[in-house]
């Protein structure tokens, strides 16, 4: 068979440095022998920042401000999860209004973060463009709508949390500021305006023919109302695990060439994120969302990794709908929450971050300082399954040109929506 020099070849090697249009830095190294993938290594090349060491001895009450800085894009997930772990450690129950504001801030993040990933990182692949900046005039309308949806998520976070990146109002036990009536009214109108746009994008991702099917175990929190917080951890095989015991079911897997530690679930590879949530929990979304996306839900449960993007697109609609419902149904009132009283203890916080299940376990000593902590982020949990998928993708396309296969690898990695900043920032050498 004729083969030109750009083919991978039966004994080839692919090295892809500086994967683009993802959060953070990563690279891929693949070795091929006899038309089979000998290995596919996904390295997270973001330098470690040693947060797990740095939090030791820090005051627990201000810790969420620090761990928010683990990740720019999903800072609200880190802040909220950390606050819940501290509250559970000291035995504090926040007010209903605080919990409601937390839920809304998560929806704002979900809309903004998914919109960034879908519209800026993935949409150009669907339209054969390199960048969102390259769309031509006939597509301007679509791009305008994309940024309007993203803007509504950004504004929701600003009204509830003070700002979208490292929110300023959220604290352990309370929000220091209550949303203003006028701002809420404006926000409801804005969310209603962008709802149709968000639905159009669901249609675009539904029609995409990108496909890589593989069997893996999907894991997510089973929340009553698809609120991204609360509930037990479940998986495709029927496991039901209270969040306080999640640590017992996962194992750290040291990946020597990657700056991030990987994880297995019950000893096997698994996947967290929007696809896992949609496969396991879709019936519990908002009724108005279910009514509008009924025709697309037939795609689930799905083994197609690219359906992670369709699931994200649907979650944007759900987050908009649920936020409108909550904002219309509640008047926010100034309140003086019970003060948080420090006592020694251990607490777990868990929630669904945009990219999947986020876990914090913190111990607080009687001086109110952190003794030690464990943090597991979504991209660490997906690292093993991503690597295997990359290997399978290369074998399926073994006769493709190097340029083509490189593009396909990047596209697949973007489907997983990894966050390298998150993944590389934790490592605890010794738990004591």
């Amino acid at each position, binding site marked *: 068979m004729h083969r030109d020099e750009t083919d991978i070849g039966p004994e080839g090697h692919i090295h892809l440095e*500086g994967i*683009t*249009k993802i*959060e*953070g*830095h990563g690279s891929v190294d693949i070795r091929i022998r006899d038309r089979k993938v000998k290995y596919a290594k996904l390295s997270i090349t*973001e*330098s*470690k*920042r*040693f*947060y797990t*060491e*740095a939090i*030791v001895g820090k005051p627990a009450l201000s810790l969420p401000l*620090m761990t928010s*800085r*683990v*990740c*720019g*894009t999903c*800072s609200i997930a880190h802040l909220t999860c950390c606050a819940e772990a501290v509250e559970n450690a000291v035995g504090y129950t926040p007010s209903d209004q605080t919990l409601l504001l937390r839920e809304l801030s998560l929806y704002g993040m979900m809309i*903004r973060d998914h919109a*960034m990933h879908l519209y*800026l990182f993935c949409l150009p692949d669907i339209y054969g463009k*390199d*960048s*969102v*900046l*390259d769309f031509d005039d006939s597509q301007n309308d679509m*791009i305008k709508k994309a*940024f*309007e949806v*993203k*803007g509504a998520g*950004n504004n929701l976070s600003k009204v509830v949390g003070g700002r*979208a*990146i*490292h929110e300023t109002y959220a604290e352990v036990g309370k929000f220091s500021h209550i949303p203003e009536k006028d701002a809420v009214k404006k926000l409801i109108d804005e969310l209603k305006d962008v709802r149709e746009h968000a639905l159009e994008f669901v249609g675009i991702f539904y029609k995409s023919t990108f496909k890589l099917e593989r069997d893996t175990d999907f894991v997510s929190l089973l929340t009553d109302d698809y609120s991204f917080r609360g509930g037990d951890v479940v998986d495709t095989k029927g496991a039901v695990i209270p969040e306080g015991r999640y640590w017992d079911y996962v194992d750290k897997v040291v990946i*020597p060439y990657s*700056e991030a530690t990987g994880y297995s679930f019950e000893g096997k590879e698994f996947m967290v994120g929007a696809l896992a949530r949609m496969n396991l929990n879709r019936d519990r979304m908002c009724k108005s969302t279910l009514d509008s996306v009924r025709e697309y839900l037939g795609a689930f449960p799905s083994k197609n990794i690219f359906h992670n993007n369709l699931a994200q697109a649907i979650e944007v609609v759900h987050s908009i709908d649920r936020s409108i419902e909550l904002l219309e149904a509640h008047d926010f009132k100034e309140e003086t929450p019970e003060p948080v009283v420090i006592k020694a203890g251990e607490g777990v916080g868990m929630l669904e971050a945009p990219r999947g299940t986020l876990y914090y376990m913190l111990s607080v000593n009687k001086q109110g300082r952190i003794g030690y902590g464990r943090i597991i982020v979504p991209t660490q949990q997906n690292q093993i399954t991503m690597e295997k998928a990359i290997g399978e993708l290369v074998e399926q396309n073994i006769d493709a040109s190097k340029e083509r296969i490189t593009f396909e690898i*990047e596209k697949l990695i973007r489907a997983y929506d990894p966050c390298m*900043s998150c993944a590389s*920032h934790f*490592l605890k*050498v*010794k738990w004591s």
Partner: protein
Amino acid sequence: MGGKKLRVGWFSFTCCEDSTMVFIELMNDHLDEWRKLIEFRHARVLKKNNTLSDIDVAFVEGAITNDKDANYLKEIRENSKKLIAIGACAVTGMPAAQRNNFDQETKNEIQFLIKRFDQADRVRKVSEVVKVDGEIPGCPMEEPIFLSALQGCLKEFGVVNA
């Protein structure tokens, strides 16, 4: 103004990329304007086809943790007329540089990883590695300061009227 555009490079080193997120959120309101006025020569977060040459202004986020990144930063400096550090990690080193302040016991604990990944003994802010023409502080960078710095560059390079 004859369609001249400001040639911008957007670079991210060790950090949480929050300033990049602020920049992406500013696009909600400024995309149309920026498409007319700015050529993104190098922006890994937005595109694959990037060029490291003839950059008018490089915005640099994050702290410098190893020699490889330091050399890359020097290369960016050589190819950029102006270089502006954005966000706390680039401007002050912190919080990415928190390992600099660990006690000796913790430093010893993490030493094998510093070695395995060829990390430098100390994490450095951008101005410790290259000459910096401007700094935009904040964690994340302050939006108004960034917008005014960008406007200043557009004028300085003759893209809009001074």
